[in-house]
């Protein structure tokens, strides 16, 4: 069996004394797409934040291995350079910093890590041409500052565009479907699907199963109260759509 890309072992974590994740375990192998579903406040975004290394989260116990390396010891930028990508739920605007320039710097950081030569401005434009088409991105957006004045849908599309350019080993998509109309959702999903390869993996974090109609996961996990309470295949997502999370939440609350 091949070595997993990501191994989360009994992860307990939270913010400022508040425990949010209560023993999460999850293993993702190359070529797999996993979905984590759950109600608001179940710890989905916390999990994404901890994987990416956001400040202010405290891991109290457990372990996370990324390609066999202790992920939690790495700085956020080192994780990114090793191929961990987070598509943000709320991508921030960075006024004054040109989108194309930003992404070229990011790509060159990744390429440096991979031992590839850096791309200059012309080579970069050539490199991204197809990916701009893939995401049906208005190339005017790339001339603007990072995410500045982008619509909600454009921001999300831009995230997946960045993912296409950076070719991560593991992409974590945090509620990428939220706030997207059906056309934008289709474009984003199409992008995500086309980036699936035998040597990479995807972790889709979502509240609804809407995205999963377009991006078909191999495994679906239900996260409630900071625990994975149920895992299954794609059918689980459809089931959840009908029954909702109530039964899990109640079961959770019933626990001592």
């Amino acid at each position, binding site marked *: 069996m091949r070595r997993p890309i990501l191994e989360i072992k009994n992860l307990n974590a939270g913010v400022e004394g508040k425990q949010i994740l209560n023993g999460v375990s999850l293993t993702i192998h190359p070529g797999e797409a996993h979905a984590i579903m759950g109600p608001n406040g179940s710890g989905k975004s916390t999990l994404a934040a901890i994987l990416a290394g*956001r*400040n202010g989260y405290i891991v109290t116990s457990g372990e996370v291995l990324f390609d066999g390396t202790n992920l939690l010891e790495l700085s956020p*930028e080192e994780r990114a350079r090793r191929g961990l990508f987070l598509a943000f739920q709320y991508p921030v605007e960075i006024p*004054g910093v*040109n989108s194309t320039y930003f992404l070229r710097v990011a790509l060159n950081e990744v390429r440096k890590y991979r031992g590839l030569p850096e791309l200059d401005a012309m080579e970069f*434009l050539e490199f991204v041409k197809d990916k701009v088409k893939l995401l049906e991105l208005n190339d005017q957006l790339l001339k603007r500052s990072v995410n500045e004045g982008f619509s909600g849908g454009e921001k999300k599309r831009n995230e997946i565009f960045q993912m296409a350019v950076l070719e991560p080993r593991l992409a974590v998509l945090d509620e990428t479907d939220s706030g997207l109309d059906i056309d934008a959702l289709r474009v984003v999903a199409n992008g995500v699907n086309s980036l699936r390869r035998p040597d990479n993996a995807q972790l889709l974090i979502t509240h609804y199963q809407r995205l999963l109609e377009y991006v078909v996961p191999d495994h679906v996990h239900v996260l409630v109260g900071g625990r994975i309470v149920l895992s299954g295949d794609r059918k689980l997502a459809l089931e959840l759509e009908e029954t909702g999370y109530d039964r899990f939440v109640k079961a959770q609350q019933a626990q001592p």
Partner: protein
Amino acid sequence: MTDTSETIAGLVRQAYKYGFYTDVETESAPPGLNDDIIRLISAKKREPAWLTEWRLKAYRYWTSMQPPTWAKITHAPINFQEITYYVAPKTVAAGPKSLDQVDPKLLETYEKLGVPLRERERLAGVAVDAVFDSVSVGTTFRKQLAAKGIIFCSMSEAVQEHPELVRRYLGTVVPFTDNFYAALNSAVFSDGSFCYVPKGVRCPMELSTYFRINAAKSGQFERTLIIADEGAYVSYLEGCTAPMRDENQLHAAVVELIALEGAEIKYSTVQNWYPGDEQGRGGIYNFVTKRGLCKGRNSKISWTQVETGSAITWKYPSCILQGDNSIGEFYSVALTTNYQQADTGTKMLHIGRNTRSTIISKGISAGHGQNSYRGLVKIVASAVNARNFTRCDSLLIGDKCGAHTFPHIEVHNNSACVEHEATTSKIGEDQIFYCNQRGISTQDAVNMIVNGFCKEVFRELPMEFAVEAQRLLGVSLEGSVG
């Protein structure tokens, strides 16, 4: 994990690379200020009587004045009797000589600062006047400039060789009665640069002065005078550094620019005086008066400044738009970190018809830095159809710094159109994290954001200085893509 805001603040705090001291033999006046000291300075420079008298008048006027207190800066009172007003390296004190006779230590100093003066190593396309403490060490490319009729030399030489020009223009834009530090400068100025570009001549290279304070407990009081005759053009650069010391040192310069009909002067500064240490000890007090007179029709004066050094910066490069259709511009980046204070901005005085001015000010505050923009746009009754656009942006890094804006607008003519825009923003942890998540280090992310913020100003700098400014802010300029 470390606190991100502290990390960010730490990154803006770059080690000062120019803090070394050059051990050269000097001759200096005793500390303190009185008629005799002024006569001594004037005699050292073999000045004509009218100039000695002018200095003495300025000195007497100064003794009747109080230091200004209106700026948003705080410092202990300065004891003007403790300062040494004249220090010169022995090898150049006797008057300008060829560079071969200059103490090699001095030439090495400028090499270390990245300003080689020796013939074969000179910066291509930039003529340099190097001022060390109170005197000019040497001026490069003079012959090439003289061939076009351009005079570029130290102020001391100008007084000897072109007294009529100096006498006609000195103090006409900044009279010694202007303010406390201008009066002090007029009394004790020791050197500086002088430039005259004759009618219709476009100066073929950048002219620059590199100011270096070396001696302890001395002040530097240079005086720069630039005259662009009808239809002339000149681009002038100014750079400054000083050794690291625990005491504060005073730098009170005066710069006067005069643009006659159709002339254009572009004046750029990268100011990197020693800013003091992390606790706010030491550093230069940079109290400077800079003003340009657009005297003739269709003339233009453009100030660009990148202020990263000094413990305190107090300066307002201004334009008097006297000629019809004249244009004044002010582009500024001021960075304050640690305990630095900056109160800087400009005055645009519209007198002629159809005069236009543009003010772009970018203040960056980090650490405990305090950064104020202070500006005056004044449109007098005669200024028909005057236009001003002002944009004033502040960027905060961390939560212990401050940004302040004091714009003054006075309009006495109804045909005027005056616009003022202002923003304040903060480099957010979210922005840094977003960059980190894309593989970009916090250092690079801050540089990228700061640089993006300053883009409009950097664009105005001549290439050589844009590179210097970029290095100073520890940033890489954004590519031309997009």
